[in-house]
């Protein structure tokens, strides 16, 4: 009996000691809330965000600027602004996060603008690609891309290639219309003609009819934008099966040959031309380091725009932690972030002080086979591009 009581006392003391030691350790940790889809049809974005940020911290030796980093993940499912707002409010008020990251969908990002503005929480957008988001709060920083950013140089290139007549075929939703306007504006400015603008309903499964219309339009090339996954596969398949490549109608795209879908496209993808800011096949030491760290964290993770957006986003958060010494100071953090420039896996990048959007090289790529795998081979760099969408205003 005596010994049992003694053991209990020791245990109680030990526990108390552990608790007493805990607060300083917790105070040192920097809390980062990652908001994205972790379930449902878009869950792969969440998985890639998680792999990207955790790989970054691991590659820096587990600590950023001497501070441990604690991630709090929150699942938004799909485009769901109401729920996202609630989740982020909880993260700010209850979990007291110092930074926020993630956001796949534009409406979700827009919904949290008032919250981060009021609480002065620096928020790094890893994906959501509508130009106007960063205008809604000065605490937004974006490490992804915008459709204008990648489409404008593509339209200029098309005009230089002596393509006079282009048909536009985009999926009929926000980003698709953004892409349509961006291409039309720039291509017309360069003296080209857009012979037809086709908007494909978002629920389309059979792309045959649209591809026939493209063929009949008499254009030399088709500029297209589709959401990833099934629509992407369906369109590329229809493009090939209906003999558009053979008929000499060139494919001009952006994210269609994204690494996440690329292998599924198979030989149908060979030769497709796209303009984009990141290719998993980008030839640089930093990119190789990124891929190695990513695979170490999660062997199934794909090096694509989502995981590189998270990786670079984490770099920005890293630098903000450094500038503030781990204290919560939104203004000071943002001041540091506005002037950042670094070597990213995608090439040299910097944050534009005015728009807080990433300035990066956009590359012209062609799909090629490298061994057993298909890759986006970068054939030409268009040089650093700002967000032409915000510039256009």
């Amino acid at each position: 009996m005596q010994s049992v009581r003694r053991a209990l006392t020791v245990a109680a003391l030990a526990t108390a000691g552990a608790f007493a030691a805990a607060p300083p350790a917790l105070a040192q940790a920097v809390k980062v809330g990652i908001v994205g889809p972790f379930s449902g049809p878009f869950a792969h974005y969440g998985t890639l965000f998680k792999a990207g940020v955790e790989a970054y911290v691991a590659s820096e030796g587990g600590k950023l600027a001497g501070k441990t980093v604690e991630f709090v993940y929150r699942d938004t499912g799909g485009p769901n602004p109401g729920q996202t707002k609630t989740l982020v409010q909880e993260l700010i008020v209850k979990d007291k996060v110092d930074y926020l990251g993630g956001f796949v969908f534009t409406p979700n990002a827009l919904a949290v603008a008032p919250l981060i503005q009021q609480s002065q929480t620096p928020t790094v957008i890893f994906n959501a690609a509508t130009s106007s988001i960063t205008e809604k709060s000065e605490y937004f920083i974006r490490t992804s891309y915008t459709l204008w950013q990648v489409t404008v140089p593509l339209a200029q290139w098309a005009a230089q290639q002596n393509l006079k007549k282009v048909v536009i075929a985009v999926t009929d939703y926000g980003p698709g219309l953004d892409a349509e306007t961006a291409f039309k504006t720039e291509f017309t400015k360069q003296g080209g003609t857009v012979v037809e603008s086709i908007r494909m309903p978002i629920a389309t499964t059979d792309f045959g009819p649209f591809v026939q219309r493209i063929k009949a339009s008499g254009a030399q090339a088709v500029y297209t934008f589709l959401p990833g996954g099934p629509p992407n596969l369906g369109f590329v398949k229809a493009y090939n099966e209906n003999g558009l490549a053979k008929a000499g109608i060139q494919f001009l795209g952006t994210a269609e040959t994204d690494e996440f879908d690329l292998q599924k496209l198979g030989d149908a993808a060979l030769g497709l031309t796209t303009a984009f800011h990141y290719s998993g096949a980008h030839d640089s030491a930093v990119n190789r380091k990124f891929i190695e760290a990513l695979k170490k964290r999660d062997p199934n993770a794909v090096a694509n725009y989502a995981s590189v957006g998270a990786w670079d986003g984490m770099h920005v958060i890293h630098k903000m932690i450094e500038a503030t010494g781990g204290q919560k100071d939104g203004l000071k953090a943002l001041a540091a972030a506005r002037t950042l420039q670094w070597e990213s896996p995608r090439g040299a990048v910097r944050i534009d002080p005015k728009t807080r959007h990433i300035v990066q090289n956009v590359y012209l790529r062609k799909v090629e086979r490298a061994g057993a795998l298909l890759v986006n081979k970068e054939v030409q760099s268009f040089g650093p591009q700002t967000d032409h969408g915000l510039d256009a205003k």
Partner: protein
Amino acid sequence: VNTLTNILIDGLAYGMVLFVIAVGLSITLGLMRFVNLSHGAFAMLGGYCAALLTREAQWSFWLAMPMAVVATGLFAAVLEALVLRHLYRRKELEQVLFTIGLSFVVIAATNALAGPQVQLITLPPLLSGSVDLGFRTLPAQRLLVIGAGLLVAAGAAWAVACTRFGIWLRAAVDHSGTASALGIPIRLVQCGSFAAGAALAALGGILGAELMPLEPYYALKYLVLVLVVVAVGGMGSITGSLAAALLLGLIETASKYLASDWGSLFFFVAMAALLAWRPRGLLVR
């Protein structure tokens, strides 16, 4: 004229895909009066089977397709014998809730086991190319779908109308008590029909995969299309489903050629109009 022939050809191909996916449901929902919202899950199961067999096990498509269809049918028979048969006498709402729940379980399980990516069925060289029709090209796979659709329609209509099993099935559905008193093996008929419905769903999942790619959300994503075809075609009428699928396929394709800005509006307007005109089925006066 060119646009018109294009609409006819693409519409026929699309309509046949719709029919091949819907015909299984027209048996379980239409003939057996079992509100089977897990139809999409069975189609997906068949598709995933074929994808795994052709891609991972390197089977020939011609072998993998019947194998996947049979496997899905057997799985459905077991499921029917153990679980689903208890639902026949329940209310429709309970059938709806159970089968939609089953779909969610299948979605989560496929997501966990195979991941969220699209699964592709490796097609043999004969089917992966395209056929030159002179004035345009058509994917060769669509010809298989059109052929298979016609075969399935003829086969199923014959089986229901002329075979002993078909007579048993109709008797069992119309008045199971009397049918069983007459010595018809009710349980065997129900189990067999349900398995056949699921097997046809699997066939549809495999043949339709080119237009409706296989991914975990398949089970619910295309369910609306399938339900529309069965509803417009009329409960239990296989020729009605065929007519409905072809008509709706043509309308959808025509709207893509002529008025794509309107989305799927015409498809659903046509559905409403057809249901108002012939509420009991396209071919039933």
